[in-house]
């Protein structure tokens, strides 16, 4: 049996699955149930200064795709709407009752040192294992100079992180907003400020849909809407990319990363860890199905690790990072072509339409024996994978590597590249 214990930024938890700071971690009642279900840790719903903020009614929007509910999820909630003292009391009690689980407290107060100093001291008294600085909330708080308003300015990230490190003994995790052009800069600022770790992503600025009758963006609050924060399965690719970019950045080597964004299964979690994350956090999947999803996450990850002979999380953490390269490091001489399994093919023709209309006209259609057939014209296929993606039948279209006999060749060395030492063309540029 694989050992799932993690020590993230020095914080021990019995598995790498934490609940992200959000409604699931809003109060003792929830967190108690989450721990009973098996979650390794929580990041408590973001605390702020009293008096607490006020939330609107009608808070969530969602994108459903082809019958799958909540492929993407959007919210216009703010940080906790409960008094600070109530939260602190509950955090103290839960940490006392569940000493083996990670208890991290998310914080967001105005951008002045006194405010941060004060709340850090209060949190420290709860016995919490660490704090997470919420520099990510993209709505409501940013207009007040907090959340993403801080996270989008690397200097502010660095400054506040430094305040926190100098006024607290607790590990400081900086939660980054994806609503920036360069996530590496934000992570670097956190590191320069002394952060023990970063976590990402927070939600992405979004409008899920517009009600065409009331002409209101959704969720509609009395006929009007506002942009919210997007999360759920739809954002996983964006989060993975950002995590990977930080993980592969030489200047950030060794900075622990808590992966967040669209994680719904053990497989998603394993992907984040392979791309460098030291643990993961989950919000939408728990909000969709309840805390019991942890069951399959733990057993699935553990069984998969057993199958691969990884005995600890660290054994596969970051293994995909060296393979996450820049485009010009890819081998241009690698070739694969599509193959259609005629036994599995259900003759829907989607591959044909896609390739014929929008790609490389590499699928032939024939109707010889009264049945429709689709076959790849191998000489034409560029190996783009489009047909394999549009095919509704799993494993019907596979991409087969072709042996070209050519040595690996990247764009950096390619004769068509004017900056390559092997450039063979002429260029107008002097």
């Amino acid at each position, binding site marked *: 049996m694989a050992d799932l214990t993690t020590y993230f930024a020095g914080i021990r938890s019995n598995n790498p699955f934490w609940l992200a700071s959000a409604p699931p971690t809003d109060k003792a009642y929830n967190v108690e149930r989450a721990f009973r279900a098996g979650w390794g840790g929580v990041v408590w719903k973001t605390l702020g200064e009293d008096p607490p903020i006020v939330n609107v009614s009608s808070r969530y929007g969602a994108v459903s795709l082809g019958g*799958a509910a909540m492929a993407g999820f959007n919210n216009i909630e703010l940080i906790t709407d409960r008094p600070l003292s109530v939260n602190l009391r509950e955090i103290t009690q839960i940490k006392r009752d569940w000493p083996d689980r990670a208890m991290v407290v998310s914080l967001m107060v105005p951008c002045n040192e006194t405010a941060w100093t004060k709340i850090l001291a209060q949190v420290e008294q709860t016995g919490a294992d660490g704090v997470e600085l919420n520099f990510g909330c993209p709505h409501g708080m940013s207009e007040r100079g907090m959340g993403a308003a801080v996270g989008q300015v690397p200097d502010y990230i660095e400054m506040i992180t430094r305040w926190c490190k100098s006024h607290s003994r607790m590990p400081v995790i900086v939660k980054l907003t994806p609503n920036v052009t360069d996530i590496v800069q934000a992570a670097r600022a956190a590191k320069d400020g002394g952060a023990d770790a970063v976590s990402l992503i927070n939600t992405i600025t979004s409008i899920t849909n517009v009600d065409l009758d009331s002409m209101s963006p959704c969720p509609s609050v009395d006929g009007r809407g506002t942009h919210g924060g997007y999360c759920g399965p739809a954002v996983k690719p964006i989060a993975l990319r950002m995590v990977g970019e930080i993980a592969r950045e030489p200047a950030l080597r060794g900075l622990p990363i808590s992966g967040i964004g669209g994680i719904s*299964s*053990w*497989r998603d979690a394993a992907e984040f860890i392979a791309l460098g994350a030291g643990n993961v956090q989950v919000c939408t999947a728990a909000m969709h*199905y*309840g805390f*019991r*999803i942890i*069951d*399959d996450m733990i*057993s*699935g990850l553990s*069984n*998969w690790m057993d199958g691969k002979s990884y005995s600890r999380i660290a054994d596969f953490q970051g293994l995909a990072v060296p393979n996450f390269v820049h485009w010009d490091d890819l081998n241009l001489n690698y070739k694969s072509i599509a193959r259609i399994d005629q036994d599995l093919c259900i003759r829907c023709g989607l591959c044909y339409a896609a390739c014929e209309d929008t790609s490389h006209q590499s699928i032939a259609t024939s109707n010889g024996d009264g049945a429709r057939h689709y076959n790849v014209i191998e000489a034409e296929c560029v190996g783009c994978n489009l047909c394999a993606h549009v095919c509704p*039948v*799993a*494993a019907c279209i596979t991409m087969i590597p072709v042996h070209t006999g050519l040595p690996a060749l990247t764009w950096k060395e390619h004769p068509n590249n004017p900056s390559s030492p092997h450039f063979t063309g002429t260029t107008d540029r002097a």
Partner: protein
Amino acid sequence: MSAQKIINFTPCPCQASQNGNYLAFWVKPDVLVNKFIDEPDGICNIFRCRAGHVIPLARKDIGTWMADIDDHFRESHPPLTSAQAVTEANRCYFCYDAPCTEACPTDIDVPGFIRGIASGNMAGAAIKILQENIFGGSCARVCPTEILCEHACVWTKAGGPAVQIGALQRVATDWQMAQPTHPFIRAPATGKHIAIIGAGPAGLSAAHGMARRGHDVTVYDTKPKPGGLNEYGIAAYKLVDDFAAREIEFLLGIGGITLEHNKTLGDDLSLDDLARNFDAVFLALGQAAVNMAGVTGEHLPSVRNAVDFIAELRQAPDKSALKIPRRVLVIGGGNTAIDAATQAKLLGAEDVTILYRKGRAQMSATAIEQNWALTHHVVIHFHAAPVRIESETGELCVVTESRRYPADLVLRAVGQKFHPLDGLEIENGRIKIDQNHATSHPKIFAGGDCVPGLDLTVRAVQDGKCAARAIHEFLGCD
């Protein structure tokens, strides 16, 4: 013609030639052909449907179905492919406090295991099933899911078909059985020794539960093979490829279980001896006796018990060697009647009719089972209660109030019953137990078909599981 399918045939009773004359049932969506095939020149041109249309049929078209009778007993519901399984698993809504789990007599966490299939965690899915139901593999095949988990599936209320829970359960358990190691680990030995009588689903489920807890178990059975009705009773097309035996081999992988064949309680073994020599005894005897139809003529030579007919068929190494006469009548309205009738048909009987004394709604065979028989061209006559069986004219005949049914073989399927046993209190003809499966004897427990309750494999498995837990506590463990 390619869309049409021959689904049944039988050798022509005239036996004129080896490969010449066959009686074929040729099924189109709307016509049924039931005519001799004559094959002088490779062209069979005298197919005639009931509407009188002549359908020419080339010999080559019927070549394949004539090849092998085993083909008729191939699996009724083939397994899902792994791609189909993932698609189906993703239909599951992952309901809270799920109705399907509530409907499962063994309390399997259905959404939990289905999520494992969807996420690619087969080992996790399998263990979730098997920890509640060590016969998860056979239950996936034999459970009437249409009245259990799938009946409860919320999809049926959302206007769609239920998630195929049974088929998904099979995917996960098949995966597990293909692994080299047993998924459970035995607790350290307790030194306790338990005797189980009856190696059917109830007995072996209890055996596994007790072996897991570290006890040693000896299972006695009067039959030469273990499995109970899984081996001798369930319809052949539900448990193909010797599945019953393979599943038991898997189950025994836990260790600590010894099987003793050809040992009969009442002859070779006595309750008193067992109670004296073992720390506890679990009776899982099933129902060894059958009910009689209660009419005259039942003892005529061509009147048989349906369960014996099925057992013979299940054990036949070569089904084509089994003799089946032309006209078969089955008396009864349950599972056994359906299974006996359908299998008689698949063996090649020409006319198979079920006589049931009440109406369709009262039939204990589910609608799906009834349809299964009907699509195999078994005829079911409702409100047809036999009043006597006679063979005065030399022809066997079942007589009801309104009709005479000539037959060559009559199969009696009017229920099994518990074979009486001395020394234990009995309730409604079966062994009386309390909620801990304890009988009136302090060291003896019982479960499965030999105690009151639903006669289903899954119920027997649950009884064995619960009894193992109760006996463990009785022995002062935990």
